[in-house]
C-alpha cells in the first residue's frame, strides 16, 4: 500500500523538489524582505485589488475566514493571496538570493546579536504594517503572538519534561489577575478599586513590573503542582494539575476585590503590538536559551529516564521545580499580556476550554520544540478564526483534528527540533 502511493506520487514529488530547489538557497534576510514588501504592497493596493476581485474588503487572514462564510469568493481570495503575498515574496526571494546571502554573511562578521536584531526589526516592521490593515487583524496578531509564548511555556513541562500537566489555565489566570490588579487599581477610575492612584504616563515602567509580578505569582502558585511531582508522575500528576486549574478558578470566583465571577475589566490599553512583540521575543529567547543548555536538557533526561538522570548527578527535584516555576512564570506573563489585550477577563476564561486550546497548540505543533510551538500556536489561531463561523461546531472539529494528529503524528508536526538562531539567520549558500 505504502509502496504504491509512493510510486504514484514520486514524479510529482520530484517535480516539486526541482521547483523548490532554488528557494532552499534563500537566506532568511531575503524572505523577511519579501514579506515586508508584500505587507507594504497590501497597504498600497490591497483595498482596490480586493474591490476589483469582488471581495469588498481586504481578506483579513489570507481569506481563511471567508472560506466558510462566503465560499463563492474563494477564487477571488486565491487570486488576491497569489498577487499580494505569494508572487511578490517568491519573486523577491529569487531576485535577492545572492544579495541576501552576501548581506547575511556580512552581518555575521559582527556579534550575532547584530544580525539577530536586524532580522527581528524586519519581522516586526512586517507584522506592524500587516497588522495595520484593521483592528481585527491587529487583535488576532497580538493574541497569536501571545499564544506562541504560552504554548512554548507549556511545552517546557509537557514536551521537554514529559509530564502531562493540565495546570496552565491556572497559571494564566494567576498572571492575568496579578497583572490586572496592579494596573487597574493604580491607573484606572473603576468601581472595584476606586479612583486611579497615578495619573501620569507611568505605563512604560509599571506595565513590565505588573507582568513580571503576575509571572512571579504564577511561579509561586506552580509549587502546588511542582512539589507533588517529586514523587508522582503520569495520570496522578495530570489529575493534581487539573484540580489546580479548578481550584484557581473557583478561588478567583470567590475573590470579591477582583470582581468575583463578573470578572475584571477596563485594563489600560498598554498591550499594543510593539509591547507584545518584545515580550514574546524575550520570552522565546530565554526559554530557548534554557532548553538548549545542559541544565535545561536535564528536563529531557528526567523525562526519558529519571533514575538514570539521578545517577548522573542531576538533581531531579530541583530540575522539576525549576521547570514548573519557569514555565508558570512565562505563562503568567502571557496571561498578563492576554488580559491587557482583551482588556477584560473573568474566571471562566481560564477553564477547561482554555486547557483544551493550550494542549491542542502544544500537541498539534510538536513536543520538545520551539518551532513546534510557533507552528502550533499560529496554526491553531488561524484555524480557530477560520472555523469561527461554525460557532459551536468548532469545538467538535478541533478535538477531532487533535485526535487525528495524535494517531498519525503522536509527537506533533515539528517535534524534537532544535531552534538554532545562528542557523536561521546564516547565509544559505
Amino acid at each position: 500500500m505504502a509502496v504504491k502511493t509512493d510510486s504514484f506520487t514520486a514524479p510529482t514529488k520530484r517535480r516539486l523538489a526541482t521547483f523548490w530547489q532554488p528557494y532552499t538557497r534563500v537566506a532568511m534576510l531575503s524572505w523577511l524582505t519579501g514579506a515586508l514588501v508584500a505587507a507594504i504592497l497590501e497597504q498600497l493596493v490591497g483595498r482596490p485589488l480586493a474591490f476589483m476581485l469582488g471581495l469588498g474588503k481586504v481578506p483579513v487572514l489570507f481569506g481563511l475566514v471567508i472560506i466558510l462564510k462566503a465560499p463563492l469568493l474563494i477564487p477571488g481570495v486565491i487570486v488576491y493571496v497569489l498577487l499580494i503575498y505569494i508572487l511578490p515574496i517568491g519573486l523577491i526571494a529569487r531576485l535577492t538570493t545572492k544579495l541576501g546571502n552576501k548581506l547575511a554573511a556580512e552581518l555575521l562578521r559582527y556579534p550575532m546579536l547584530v544580525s539577530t536584531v536586524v532580522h527581528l526589526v524586519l519581522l516586526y516592521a512586517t507584522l506592524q504594517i500587516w497588522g495595520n490593515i484593521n483592528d481585527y487583524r491587529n487583535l488576532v496578531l497580538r493574541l497569536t503572538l501571545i499564544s506562541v509564548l504560552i504554548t512554548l511555556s507549556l511545552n517546557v513541562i509537557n514536551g521537554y519534561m514529559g509530564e502531562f500537566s493540565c495546570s496552565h489555565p491556572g497559571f494564566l489566570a494567576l498572571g492575568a489577575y496579578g497583572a490586572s490588579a496592579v494596573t487597574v487599581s493604580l491607573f484606572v477610575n473603576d468601581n472595584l478599586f476606586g479612583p486611579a492612584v497615578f495619573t501620569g504616563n507611568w505605563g512604560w515602567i509599571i506595565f513590565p513590573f505588573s507582568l513580571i509580578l503576575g509571572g512571579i505569582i504564577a511561579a509561586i502558585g506552580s509549587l502546588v503542582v511542582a512539589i507533588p511531582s517529586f514523587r508522582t508522575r503520569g495520570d496522578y500528576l495530570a489529575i493534581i494539575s487539573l484540580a489546580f486549574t479548578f481550584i484557581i478558578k473557583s478561588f478567583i470566583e470567590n475573590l470579591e476585590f477582583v470582581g468575583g465571577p463578573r470578572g475584571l475589566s477596563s485594563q489600560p490599553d498598554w498591550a499594543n503590538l510593539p509591547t507584545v512583540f518584545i515580550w514574546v521575543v524575550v520570552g522565546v529567547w530565554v526559554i530557548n536559551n534554557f532548553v538548549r543548555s545542559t541544565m535545561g536538557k536535564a528536563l529531557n533526561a528526567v523525562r526519558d529516564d529519571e533514575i538514570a538522570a539521578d545517577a548522573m548527578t542531576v538533581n531531579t527535584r530541583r530540575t522539576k521545580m525549576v521547570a514548573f516555576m519557569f514555565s508558570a512564570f512565562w505563562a503568567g506573563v502571557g496571561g498578563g499580556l492576554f488580559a491587557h489585550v482583551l482588556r477584560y477577563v473573568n474566571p471562566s476564561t481560564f477553564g477547561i476550554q482554555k486547557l483544551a486550546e493550550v494542549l491542542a497548540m502544544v500537541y498539534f505543533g510538536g513536543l520538545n520544540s520551539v518551532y513546534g510551538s510557533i507552528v502550533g500556536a499560529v496554526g491553531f489561531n488561524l484555524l480557530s478564526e477560520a472555523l469561527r463561523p461554525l460557532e459551536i461546531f468548532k469545538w467538535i472539529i478541533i478535538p477531532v483534528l487533535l485526535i487525528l494528529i495524535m494517531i498519525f503524528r503522536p509527537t506533533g508536526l515539528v517535534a524534537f527540533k532544535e531552534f538554532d538562531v545562528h542557523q536561521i539567520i546564516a547565509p544559505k549558500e
Partner: protein
Amino acid sequence: MTLLHVQNMTHYFGGLRAVYNYNLSIEPGEIRGLIGPNGAGKSTIFNLLTGVHTPTEGEATLNGVSLIGKSPHEIAAMGIGRTFQNLRLWRHMSVLEHINMASYAHITYGLVGAFFGTALRQKQEAEIEEKSYHLLQLVGADKFADQNVTNLPYGILRRIEMARALATNPKILFLDEPTAGMNPEELKEMMAIIRHVHSELGVAIFLIEHRMKFVMELCDRVQTLVFGEVIAEGTPDEIQNNPLVIEAYLGKDLDT
C-alpha cells in the same frame, strides 16, 4: 585509606531478604568483582550503595563519608559513577548530550547562565563538551557523538553508558554486567576498554559479572554472592577453586 567501606549491610524487600550482612572494602584504584547466580542480590547491592534503595540495616562510607540516606545524585557527585544492567539511556538525546549531562554537578553558571546564555555558560559548555569528547574517545565511541542513541548497536551503547558514568568524575566506577548480551568479539573489546579506562584514569572499578573468565582476567579480588550472602571472597584463583563456589555454579560451565 579505604575508598569504599561497607559494614553489615542488610536489605529486605518486604519479606524478601535480598542482601544479608554484606561487608566490603575497596582500595583506591582496585578492580573488584562480584559474581553470583541470577537473583543473588548483586544489582541490589549496587542500588543500595548508589542511593536507589536505603538499606534496612548497615553502614556504607566513601572516603569516610556516609552514603546512607543520601539521594542518588548526591552520591554520584561524591564519586560513585555507575552503569545499569539493563541500559538506561535517554532515547531522545544524542550521544554527546548523554555524556554532557553527567557533568551536571560541575555546572556553576546557574540559572542566570541558563536563561541568558552568559559568557561563563559558553565557556563551561565548551569545556564540558571537550571533556565529553575525550571520554568518548577513551571508550572508542567518539564517531557516534552526534547520533541519537536509538539507532546504535548494543555494544556501543554499553560503552556510551560507561563514558557517561565516567563524566561524573567518579572515584569508583560501578559496572553492572558490562558484557551482558555481547558476542565474544564485543566481549574482548569491552575487556580491553575497561583495562584502558582503568590505566588512563586510575579509577577504582567494582563490577558485576556473569562470565567467570571475564572476572578472572580483570579483577584483583572477587566476591561470590548467593541468596544475598557472600559465600566466598578472595583472589580469582582462590575463588575458582573454592568448593562452595563450584557448588553454587554446579551444572554451569565456569568458562562461559
